[in-house]
Every structure is written in structure tokens, then in C-alpha cells.
């Protein structure tokens, strides 16, 4: 599959990146993303134009636990936490906000999940919405559902994603 992002590259200047809305996302890419890469905690993918970082997202593996299985569900469903890919951060530089780059990065992220799901089990896609506006977008528009313990941690079935990509083929 084609991706519009490239692997994390520490030689790219990250200190100038400014998403304006959440300073923590600026700090992350400038100071912590490299450490997380080195420690294999998460993978960061960068969108770069003319050598300038304009957007990024980070993903990691996660698991989803299921609460209160009834007897029927116990027979039909695994009793252990299920694998997921977590979109932990996504940010766009203020110079490119409002032109659809965020959606393109989301699409890029979904393509990566689809690719991973062919090699290893991924039952769910999990995202952490930064605010209520983003959470509403994920739920109302993209079909995510809220987790039980955190209304801003949202979940989508990988099977839905696979259906979508197969429909494009």
C-alpha cells in the first residue's frame, strides 16, 4: 500500500512544529517521539513537504478487555484481552490546518492498520480523542464506539475497516 507519511526521521527539524491547539503534541514530537522510537514503545510517522514537518501521527499496540461476559458470550468470545492498534497522537502544523491534511493522515493510519492486520491479529482500532469535538467526529461520522471506562477512548472494529478497503479494491 502507498503511504503519504514516512518513518520517524530525527534529522528533520521538529522544534518548529506547532499545532497551536495542544502544546503537549508539540512537546511530544520535539522531545519524546525519538525516545519512544528508540525504546520501541510507539512508532511515529511524519508528513513532510520540502523538508518541513507538517503533520505526524503515532501508533502503538494495545489491548481491549471485555467486561462482564455472560455464559453465552463466554463460549463465543475469547476470555483474554484482544489485540488492538492505538492511534495515540495525531497533529497538524498550524500552517496546514483546515485543508484536509488531518483526514489524509487518518486514512494513512487506517492503511497501516490494514497492512498490520494481514500479518498479525488486530481486532480493534483504538483512538484517543483529544477533546469532545474530536470524539464526536469519530463517533458520529466514522462509526467509532466509546469504551466503557473512558468516553474519549474510542473503538472501531478492524473488520469494518477491512470491509471498507475491500470495497475500494
Amino acid at each position, binding site marked *: 500500500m502507498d503511504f503519504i507519511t514516512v518513518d520517524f526521521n530525527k534529522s528533520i527539524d521538529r522544534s518548529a512544529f506547532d499545532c497551536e491547539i495542544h502544546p503537549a503534541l508539540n512537546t511530544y514530537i520535539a522531545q519524546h517521539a525519538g525516545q519512544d522510537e528508540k525504546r520501541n514503545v510507539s512508532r511515529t510517522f511524519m508528513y513532510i513537504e520540502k523538508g518541513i514537518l507538517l503533520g505526524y501521527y503515532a501508533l502503538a499496540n494495545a*489491548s481491549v478487555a471485555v*467486561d462482564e461476559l455472560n455464559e453465552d458470550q463466554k463460549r*463465543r468470545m475469547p476470555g483474554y484481552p484482544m489485540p*488492538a492498534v492505538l492511534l495515540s497522537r495525531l497533529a497538524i502544523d498550524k500552517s496546514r490546518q483546515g485543508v484536509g491534511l488531518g*483526514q489524509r493522515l487518518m486514512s494513512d493510519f487506517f492503511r497501516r492498520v490494514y497492512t498490520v492486520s494481514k500479518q498479525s491479529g488486530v481486532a480493534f482500532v483504538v483512538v484517543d480523542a483529544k477533546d469532545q469535538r474530536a470524539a464526536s467526529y469519530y463517533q458520529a*461520522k466514522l462509526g467509532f*464506539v466509546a469504551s466503557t471506562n473512558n468516553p474519549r477512548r474510542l473503538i472501531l472494529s478492524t473488520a469494518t475497516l477491512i470491509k471498507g478497503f475491500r470495497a475500494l479494491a
Partner: protein
Amino acid sequence: MVEKVLCDRLVQSLWQMGEVVRSEHGCVSRSTSLNRGKSGRRGLRIGVKSDVLGFTDTEGCIVNKPVQPKSAQLTADKVSAALSDADAVVERHASKSLASSALSRTSGLRTRSMRAMHLSNVERELAELKKVVAALAVRSVVHEEMAFDLDHYGVTVLDAGTAHQLLDTPPEPTEALQKLLALR
């Protein structure tokens, strides 16, 4: 560090209290006692009344391991307010205790002379220390609660019915999702 200094101070006051009671009433029994549990964790058995976290006992309450804290019922605002109050009390008394500890190190006679304190002074100091211990208890419970929340936060939990539906009968992608997937 702060907890140790405050506990030492409390122990010192309790000893002084005992000396005063003994000297004024001619008995050696103490109205308070210190316990050390099997685990070695320090537990202070004193008569503290605190309604901040729903403690109702006024006698024999294990302060730094409260029985059934009803912290789940606390709202975030209440927790923050309780923590803020507790922090203020602890910091104020910690500064005072550290200052007096420094004095006691420089003057060997000070400890001895404090034995002559009047019962009312000792009682007042003990009352203050009870407040500090209660504040420490509040702070420790709030911090434990925060740690629990963080642990809990790290796990994504999904309702069993929803999970079953997503796995076995996954919904079709929405129109917006389908358009998004087509983007390059």
C-alpha cells in the same frame, strides 16, 4: 521524609503527654497508643475524626489505612479540594516541625525542658498533630486513588455485548469512513 518528621513529632508529643499524665494523675496508662502492623507499615491508632473521606469513627481509627474509604463517591472537585486542604495543612506543619527539629538538634536541653510543658499545651499540640495526621491520611488516600485511576486508565475496557457485535457482526463502514479510506 515529611511523614517521618511528623510521625517523630507525634511520638515525641505522645511521650510528653504520658509524662504529664503520669506526673499530674499519678498513673502510667496512656490514652493513645502506637501500632505497628505485621507488614511493618506504620499505623497510628488515635482518635481522629474526619468527615472528608467519610470516616465516621472517632475512636480507634487506623488513620493511614482507613476502613472502606468511600472515595468512589467523591467528585473530582471534592478530591481536589480535599487534597489542596490536606497539602496546605501538611506543608504548614512540616515546616514548623522541621524548624523545631533543627532547634532540638542544636539544643540538647530543649527535649528535657519540654517535659515540663503544661498539660493544656501538650493537648493543644496533640490536637494540631491529629489534624496533620488526618491531612496526611486524606493525602495518602487521594494519591492512592489517583494511582488507581491511572492504572485503570491504561486499560481499554469494552462492554461485552458491544464487543461481541463488533467482532461477529461488524457494522458496514459509514459513508464518511469509506470516503476517508479512499483519500491519498
